[in-house]
């Protein structure tokens, strides 16, 4: 079992899909700082992916500050230092504005858009 939800699909590289799933799990609270992160072997066995890919994913997460290696335990989830909520939201404001404009043109309600965002 993996501590985050993932359904691998074709098309985009497996490593990108895992990174996205892990980020989402951290955002939704499915995984929290201090949690143990699965080993390379568990990742590769659970997802039936090459250990090389699994290893690469772990390194990328570590580089991005999401994982820390703790001797004796393995990888542990960390929350990287990040700016305050307002600042982070400000970063995605232009995309949100564009999305709302596009949604209005397509005659979609805010709730429909929110439901769709959650389903991604």
């Amino acid at each position, binding site marked *: 079992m993996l501590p985050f939800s993932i359904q691998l699909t074709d098309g985009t590289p*497996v490593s990108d899909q895992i990174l996205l799933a892990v980020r989402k799990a951290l955002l939704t609270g499915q995984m929290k700082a201090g949690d143990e992160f699965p080993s390379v072997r568990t990742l590769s066995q659970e997802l039936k992916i090459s250990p090389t890919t699994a290893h690469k994913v772990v390194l990328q997460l570590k580089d991005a500050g999401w994982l820390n290696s703790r001797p004796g335990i393995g990888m542990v989830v960390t929350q990287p230092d990040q700016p305050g909520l307002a600042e982070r939201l400000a970063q995605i404001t232009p995309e949100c504005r564009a999305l709302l404009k596009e949604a209005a043109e397509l005659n979609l309600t805010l709730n429909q858009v929110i439901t769709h965002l959650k389903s991604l």
Partner: protein
Amino acid sequence: MITISDLHKRFRKTEAVAGLSLEVPEGQVTAFLGPNGAGKSTTIKCLLNLYRPDSGSASVLGTDSRKLGPAQFTQIGYVSENMELPLWMTVKQFLDYCRPLYPNWDKAFEAQLLTQFDLPLTTKLKDLSRGMRMKAALLSSLAYRPKLVVLDEPFSGLDPLVRDEFIRGLLELTEQEGWTVFVSSHDIEEVQRLADRIAIINRGKLALDETSDSLQSRFRAIEVVLPDQSRAPVSLPTDWLHAEQAGRTLRFTASRFQNDTQLAASLREAIPTASTPEIRPMSLREIFVALARAYRLEGK
């Protein structure tokens, strides 16, 4: 791990392997793909000294394939779709028979795999399902923790559950230092997530050898809309494969994709009236299909 240079093997009039060269690196899963009859099994049998090459050579674990002996075979695990097993033996007898052949046999690992594979010790191999028999064969080839595992069409005819168990078992081995997997298949679907490298053999020769990452980064499915009544030019850039137009929509596979800007630029040059392209990444299976069409992959 494996180096094949200009390998030739002929059976009467058929040249099964016709000058194949390939390098299989350590610490990766290399998928050896090609249509049935392309020469995959013959190549593998040459690698394992089951066939003698007519010319050219292969070196496995640093030893010429023609000189492979017991010392090397304790480091190589081999499972083939149609390998001959002592069918009259029970699973237990089979393992008892294999164990003394390998000084490096790991009994604890054997026990772990037995549980994992859910194999019945007292059943004769001939009474096992095909999937169970393949698992028994894999167990007997993994329990001594070989450095190199060679699998010849291991998944054909296995149901998805058994295939998953099989892959899990295989991946157990990659925990140790120094492992290499070389797996042949006629169906990329079976190995597309597992493979770090893709080698394609066609008519006994190497058609492609590339990492999965590199393939996925250079291939894109492109779709553009053309103005009313207009046809795409007959000659398009040669790296645009399988261009097809239906109504206003033109589709093709970009095989040397770098980035969106560069693609948009070459599109403007080739078809100035085309709309902004829709650019979509492709799965390895789609890429394989595109390549198969481009190379006209066929068996013999």
